[in-house]
């Protein structure tokens, strides 16, 4: 058996105005929950607990039935079964408010005796939730829930209660379970209703609520359909709702009671942004001692350890629970709210990356050969598009998955070359562009400091805008294109121009068109095709196809461009 509180949905800082309530004095929330379970005066659907005066109020109503408002010191717990408007199994636990049959006939109240004299009444079955005229299943009917109808000719009929959608999450390789670990950031299930039963808005839609959590921009967050997700590290999955008056709401997906997997134990040194750092450094880089996460003094804050069980908010150790640049903490210095911590880097232990020959530099910005050993973290294409994560099938379905190419290091959305293409590439997050080569140079070229057209990516201190390499974009129909893209818009690899296999094409060869730039297997436009550059493909069943090369930016729309930006020694945040 789990914690009694697992049956409740917790909302901090909320209060509801109810008529039927009972006051108790309890020491904690659990005791208050026990009062609710044992409540005899009414059907307890929720309870409020105030932390300062330890007051417990059991309530007959919940947020679906009463007005809510904020109250900083209160915690509201609502029984989950009363919030669900769907049924699990045969609906024995269904406590929703559907009150008509599948044919649309209003239900008779369970406590009334006309038009039908019921066998099942609230008195005889006090635990069956026979409130009002709501559909219920007090007799374990396989087709339940049902109700007596108000039609004298029809004694009872079944109700059309939707099944609760699969409340499951993926737990890596293992079996699926009906719960979410931690705050549900890894939840990939298909629940698409909020805790109060509202339908979720499609993540890809901007109506009725405009927002920035678009699948295009967050390919790694799996923002599919209108499924509940937690893309921003909130306490649990949520969604924008289809109700114009309710922008968003949490979804009611049960939490697992088992601890997170051992892999989440974390690191004792700094890698990446240090989100997995679980070491014991508790002093900031400027020497301030860290405030304990479970205290609110001297600084009030929302990173309460209980609410974020998987963020490692122990003691006063430096942590990065919110995707900051590196671990940080609130400080005990009342005039310094928070500061970053100086955590030793894991670099020393990370250098032996598998499959990378010793002579290959671990460079972020360049690749050697065809870049099959490139292991950097660049994830931007030549035209500035963001890469799609390799393990994501959105916006593009593909077969270049980490399990099929285990040695290709298909991590995150980093540029890679798993298939022996000419250079690292990736699928893009732009639904209209399947894939593109990445904004990377060959290491040998990169050693020339003034390599033409190359500008470094943005760094923390130096805002420099990445611009496409002009040779990798087309003007007009692309007749002058001399870039190195060698893959068609549908992802097929191009055939070399001087090869006759698999497709024979005597006319378009480097000899017949010496000025058309028919080098290797690069996309070209030797015949002035008005639709752009193309190539013969290596697919025996597809002789030729157009390539998708981004257009070079036009100077007509020069808005928003700045010609000057410099490094600034000033700290970013005062």
């Amino acid at each position, binding site marked *: 058996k789990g914690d009694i509180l697992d049956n409740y949905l917790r909302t901090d*800082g909320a209060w509801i105005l109810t008529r039927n309530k009972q006051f108790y004095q309890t020491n904690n929330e659990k005791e208050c929950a026990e009062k609710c379970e044992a409540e005899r005066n009414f059907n307890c659907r929720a309870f409020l607990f105030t932390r300062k005066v330890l007051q417990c109020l059991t309530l007959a109503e919940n947020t679906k039935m009463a007005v809510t408002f*904020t109250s*900083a010191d209160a915690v509201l717990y609502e029984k989950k079964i009363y919030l669900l408007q769907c049924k699990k199994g045969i609906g024995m636990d269904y406590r929703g408010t559907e009150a008509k049959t599948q044919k649309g006939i209003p239900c008779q109240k369970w406590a009334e005796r006309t038009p039908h004299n019921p066998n099942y009444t609230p008195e005889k079955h006090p635990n069956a939730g026979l409130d009002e005229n709501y559909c219920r299943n007090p007799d374990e009917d396989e087709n339940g829930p049902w109700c007596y109808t108000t039609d004298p000719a029809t004694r009872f009929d079944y109700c059309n209660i939707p099944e609760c959608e699969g409340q499951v999450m993926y737990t890596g390789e293992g079996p699926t379970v009906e719960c979410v670990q931690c705050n549900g950031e890894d939840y990939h299930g298909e629940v698409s209703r909020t805790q109060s039963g509202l339908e979720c808005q499609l993540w890809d839609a*901007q*109506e009725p*609520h*405009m*927002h*920035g*959590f*678009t699948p*295009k*921009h*967050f390919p790694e967050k799996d923002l599919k359909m209108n499924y509940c997700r937690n*893309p*921003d590290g909130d306490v649990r999955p*949520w969604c924008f709702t289809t109700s114009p008056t309710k*922008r*968003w709401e949490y979804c009611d997906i049960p939490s697992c009671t088992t601890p997170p997997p051992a892999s989440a134990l974390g690191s004792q040194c700094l890698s990446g942004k240090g989100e997995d750092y679980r070491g014991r450094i508790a002093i900031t880089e400027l020497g301030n001692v860290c405030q304990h996460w479970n205290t609110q003094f001297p600084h*009030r*804050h*929302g*990173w309460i350890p209980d609410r974020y069980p998987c963020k490692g908010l122990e003691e006063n150790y430096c942590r990065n629970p*919110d995707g900051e640049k590196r671990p940080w903490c*609130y400080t005990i210095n009342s005039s310094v*709210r*928070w500061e970053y911590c100086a955590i030793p880097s894991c670099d020393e232990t990370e250098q032996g990356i598998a499959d990378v020959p010793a002579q290959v530099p671990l460079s972020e910005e360049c690749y050697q050969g065809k870049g099959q050993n490139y292991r950097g973290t660049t994830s931007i294409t030549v035209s*500035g598009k963001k890469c799609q994560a390799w393990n994501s099938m959105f916006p593009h379905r593909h077969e270049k998955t980490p399990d099929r190419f285990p040695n290709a290091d298909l991590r995150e959305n980093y540029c890679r070359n798993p298939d022996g293409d000419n250079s690292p590439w990736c699928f893009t997050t732009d639904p209209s562009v399947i894939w593109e080569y990445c904004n990377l140079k060959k290491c040998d070229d990169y050693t020339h400091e003034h390599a033409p057209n190359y500008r470094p990516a*943005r760094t923390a201190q130096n*805002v420099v*805008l*990445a*611009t496409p390499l002009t040779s990798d974009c087309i003007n007009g129909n692309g007749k002058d294109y001399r870039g190195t893209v060698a893959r068609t818009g549908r992802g097929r690899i191009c055939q070399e121009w001087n090869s006759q296999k698999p497709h024979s094409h005597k006319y378009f060869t480097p000899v017949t068109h010496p000025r058309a730039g028919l080098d290797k297997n690069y996309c070209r436009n030797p015949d002035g095709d008005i639709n752009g550059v193309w190539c013969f493909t290596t697919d025996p069943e597809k002789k030729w196809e157009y390539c998708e090369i981004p257009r070079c*930016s036009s100077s007509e*729309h*020069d*808005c*928003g*461009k*700045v*010609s*000057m*930006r*410099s490094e*600034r020694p*000033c*700290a*970013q*945040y*005062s």
Partner: protein
Amino acid sequence: MCDASPGSWPWHVSLRKSTNVHHCAGTLIHPQWVLTAAQCLQESTEPSSYRVFLGIQNLNSAEPSLQIQSVQKVLKEPNGADIALLKLNSPVTITDHVKPVCLPETNRMVERNAVCFLTAWGKTRGTDIDNRLKDVEFPVLENRICNRPEFLNGSVKLNEFCGGFTFGSIDNCEAEVGGPLVCQDKDRFVQYGVTSWGLDCTQPSKPVFVRIPSFVSWIKNAMLLH
């Protein structure tokens, strides 16, 4: 906030009243149009009451790049949003120091992890204005965060959004009314917000911005009609 590099925010303009004293910020969105907050025009909707100073880094210096424009028309958003358009008497000369910012697509809000900047000549807590244009990288927050009880407690409307940090505070409040929140989109900057309210220096700074994607249609139609 840091002093901005000269010319790094060439759309940021100074709106002044007839006294030539800096009154509000605004942005150049077209060679002949400036976007600002409607509250900056409360005292008068008479175009001749205002002048626009463009291409300056320092409010009180006569920099070579300075261009001054009179206002031909004042158009406030008809439904009461805190946003307004000023039509300049004539198109400005586009230079490296005077250049329009891009507008976003209609109803398309900035992606959540975009790099955005707040620029302002505003006051720093406890000090007088120091006259130099400043900037700070500033995250856009989702309204559900802004509207939490500990932040702006439900007062941010659908056509607004707030920015700032969910922990810590910025010990200044440089945001100033009418000024922009711009976000980087590849090699351009796009304006997503007009600074509106929430600038109380005694509180952790959570400026609230008018959500421009909601008003792009109005802006474009107004420019077309006028």
